[in-house]
């Protein structure tokens, strides 16, 4: 790829550095010498499964937004529009590969078997982390931008030292690439040739700030400077993301060192449920990206293949409805925890100062009447 042409048009698809693509916007499959060899195993059923996966993610996301609007969740960061990026990556990894993500990767969490209640706990405010990272092979959501990129590098260094097989994946947004932590993660990964995949979902915005505030060249130019090879793909093309992720993972697994993959996509919804995107982007832009909707694109492709699209769609809708129902039902599991649990896990062992504070709170609440923490 070129590393010299600065991009002035920040609507990157179709720009001078055309990202790798397998499915055109209208669903036509075109040849990609780089990616085609990695897609030979996909038959029509597999394509239908990918469509169903994306449909389920969208339904979960829509349902979570609805739950937030109904006051059941404090906040939710929608992933709508980024389904292909998350499914494509997930379907290219081994179960043992370990993920470090930020807060928008609920699709990856879902595919890692995180239960609805585990996934909602953070957003309902009943826990800081919903699940066991080791059981899911996925760290719990990181809110501090880019902090997890260093954790991924260290994790990968350690697993290699310990002779373990899996690779480690760091997921982050375009904004994250501006942080010092990210720059340091690249340096460590390159210097130590670490088995790590940097997976950037460039959804064009960091809250209100368009990609141009973070970078005047495609983000994938940046790692090149420290010697990390890159791939840049159309992030709304689930086949391209899956193939590119596989390519990267294979290379890393074979001892090829770190890789960086930029999935060029778009956040169709607000940054979070408390954001107002009409303040910083216009309908015309949104419309352009709606036409590149990853779900529509795969549907069109299936149509062109002569697949029974109505049937496929109906089956996907059924699975999506089930997932949404499960999400809503999970709220019942998220009752307020007992107050004493707030004092647990600060250190491995209880320390007297905290025991004292906990007892004081219990005593106060007991003295105020029908009490919380009374049964201690």
């Amino acid at each position, binding site marked *: 790829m070129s590393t010299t042409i600065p991009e002035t048009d920040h609507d990157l698809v179709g720009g001078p550095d055309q990202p790798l693509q397998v499915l055109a916007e209208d669903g036509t499959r075109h040849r990609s010498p780089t990616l085609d060899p990695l897609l030979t195993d996909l038959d029509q059923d597999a394509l239908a499964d990918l469509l169903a996966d994306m449909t389920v993610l969208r339904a979960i996301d829509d349902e979570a937004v609805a739950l937030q609007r109904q006051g059941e969740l404090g906040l939710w960061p929608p992933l709508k529009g980024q389904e292909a990026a998350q499914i494509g990556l997930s379907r290219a990894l081994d179960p043992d590969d370990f993920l470090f993500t930020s807060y928008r990767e609920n699709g990856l969490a879902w595919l890692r078997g995180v239960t609805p209640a585990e996934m909602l706990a953070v957003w309902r405010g009943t826990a800081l982390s919903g699940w066991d990272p080791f059981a899911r092979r996925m760290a719990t959501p990181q809110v501090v931008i880019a902090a997890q990129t260093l954790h991924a590098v260290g994790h990968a260094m350690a697993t290699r030292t310990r002779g373990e097989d899996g690779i480690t994946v760091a997921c982050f947004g375009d904004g994250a690439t501006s942080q010092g932590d990210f720059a340091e993660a690249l340096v460590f990964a390159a210097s130590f040739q670490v088995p790590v995949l940097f997976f950037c979902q460039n959804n064009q915005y960091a809250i209100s700030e368009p990609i141009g505030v973070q970078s005047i060249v495609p983000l994938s130019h940046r790692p090149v400077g420290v010697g990390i090879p890159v791939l840049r793909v159309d992030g709304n093309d689930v086949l391209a993301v899956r193939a590119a992720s596989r390519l990267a993972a294979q290379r890393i697994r074979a001892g090829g060192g770190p890789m960086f993959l930029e999935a060029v996509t778009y956040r169709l919804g607000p940054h979070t449920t408390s954001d107002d995107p009409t303040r*910083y982007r216009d309908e015309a832009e949104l419309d352009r990206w709606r036409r590149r909707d990853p779900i529509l694109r795969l549907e069109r492709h299936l149509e062109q293949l002569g697949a029974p699209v109505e049937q496929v769609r109906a089956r996907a809708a059924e699975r999506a409805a089930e997932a949404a129902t499960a999400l809503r039902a999970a709220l019942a599991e998220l009752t307020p925890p007992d*107050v004493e649990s707030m004092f647990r896990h600060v250190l491995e062992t209880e320390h007297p100062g905290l025991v004292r504070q906990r007892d004081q709170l219990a005593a106060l609440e007991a003295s105020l009447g029908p009490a919380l923490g009374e049964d201690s």
Partner: protein
Amino acid sequence: MTMAQALNAALADELAGDDRVVLIGEDIGTLGGVFRITDGLKTRFGGERVIDAPLAESGIVGTAIGMAYAGQRPVCEIQFDGFVYPAFDQIVSQASRLRYRTGGFVAMPLTIRIPFGGGIGAVEHHSESPEAYFAHTPGLRVVTVADPQDAYSTLRAAIRSEDPVIFLEPKRRYWGKGEVDRTLRADLDSARVLRPGRDATLVAYGPLVLTALEAAVAAEDDGIDLEVIDLRSLAPLDRATVAASVRRTGRLVVTHEAPGTVSLAAEVITSAIEDCFDHLEAAPERVTGYDIPYPPSAFEEHHLPGIDRILDAVDRTLGRRHSREVRA
């Protein structure tokens, strides 16, 4: 106007009055900031004075230091309390000590605005009270405000200060309303007695000032007359105002949201003991957040000091029956 509007007015007035003033932060331009504190300022003053920064806090504060070197008066916005830590090194190793290091040659008229504290049901890293880290660092001024007038006048004073100022905005009070007189001036050094009282001194700052005032009203029902002090300046500390009050009341309770260990409360109480030990009728009390990371929002009503916990501590200083006896 609301406190948010008062802060916006203060920024607008300083930008208009001094072309060396520049604002820099994430989402502060087009969006007007996630709390809309900078709403409309980019339209009015342009993108060179109201700068949407790349997503990098160390970058924001570090470049602001350079701007101050070159004669500007930068005002940084850190989006949330929990995101100031990536800039911590630039603040404590650089901004705080440039005047000292250079023997007075380099001033640092830098203001770092941080929405801080809990109580809004937010997710992790959005409810922190980091004031003690900064108050512990020589060379920084640390101030916080409690109502719209104070917010307006103190922010203007902070921007005019030749020293780096950590300006802490109590985010759960952003939407509280009050009169604002734009001609009033504030300093960065003094605490204020918000309500005179006879029986005990209750010291608070930022988000807990309102809670302290409410506690004082509730205490009246029990015949207790509380003096309420808004500390305002956390560094340097106005010890004289606190000591004068404690000499009158003989009792001291300090409250804040940050964990109590190695805290502002610890500092205020120690100062009072040094300054007016002979006047203390009872051991001072602190009512603070617990010594835990800020918990999930389901717990925050228990974690944050409320009226009941404050009054319980007041009762203890007055030797009245209180909860610890109930359980002991």
